[in-house]
C-alpha cells in the first residue's frame, strides 16, 4: 500500500491540466479519489463505540 500514491496521481493530474489534456486529467482525478477512498477503508479499522 503506497501512501504517496494519491499525491502522485494528483500531481500527474496537474501535469495533464498544464498540457490541456482534459480526458487524462479527469482520469487522474478519478484515480486520486478512488485510491483515497480505498486507503481510507484500509485505515479505518478501529471500531467506534457509538450506538444510534
Amino acid at each position: 500500500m503506497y501512501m504517496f500514491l494519491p499525491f502522485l496521481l494528483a500531481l500527474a493530474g496537474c501535469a495533464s491540466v498544464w498540457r490541456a489534456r482534459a480526458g487524462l486529467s479527469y482520469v487522474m482525478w478519478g484515480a486520486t479519489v478512488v485510491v483515497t477512498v480505498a486507503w481510507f477503508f484500509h485505515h479505518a479499522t478501529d471500531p467506534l463505540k457509538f450506538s444510534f
Partner: protein
Amino acid sequence: MGEQRPVGAILNMLGLLGISLILTVAFTYQLALGELPCPLCLLQRAGFIAIGMGFLFNMRLGERPSHYAMILIACLVTGVIAMRQVSLHLAPGDPGYGSALWGLHFYTWALIAAVGVVSYVALVFVLKDATGRREADEPVTGLAPNVVFAVFALLVAANLLSTVLECGAGQCDDNPARYLLLR
C-alpha cells in the same frame, strides 16, 4: 484596460487559493512544529487536493457542471474522512491528535472546511446567476491564474515528497514519530 474576467473565473481562482491556503497551514504546522501527519490526516490532504483539482479544471479546462460535481464529491470524501477522525477522538478526556488551532484540531477544521467548500460552491452558483454570466465556459489565462496554478502544483509536489520521506514505499504508522527515510 484588459478584458474583464467572468465572475466564475475569479471565484474558482479564489477557491483554489483557499485550498492552497489550507494545504499551506497544514504544511507549516508539519515543518515548524515537527508534527508528522497521520494516515487519516494525509488522506484529508489528498481530499483537499482533489477539491482543488476541481477548481483547477474550471480555471484551465473551462467551467463545466461536471467540474463542480467533482468538487462536491471530493468534499464528501474529505468530510467523511475528517468525520471519522473526529469520531475517534470524541470521547470525554481524549486529548485529540496533534495540536489545535483556535481551540479546534485540524481534522475538525477539515470537516468545517469541507462543508464550507460546499457552501462556497452554492455561493458561486448564486453569484454567477445574479451577474447573468451563466455560460462562461472558456478557460482563463494570464499571470494570476498561472501563479495560482503553480502554487497549487508546488504544494501537491511538496506533499508527495513529504509523504515519500515520511512513509517510504509503504503505509504510514498510525502515530508517526519520525520520517522513515530521514535518519
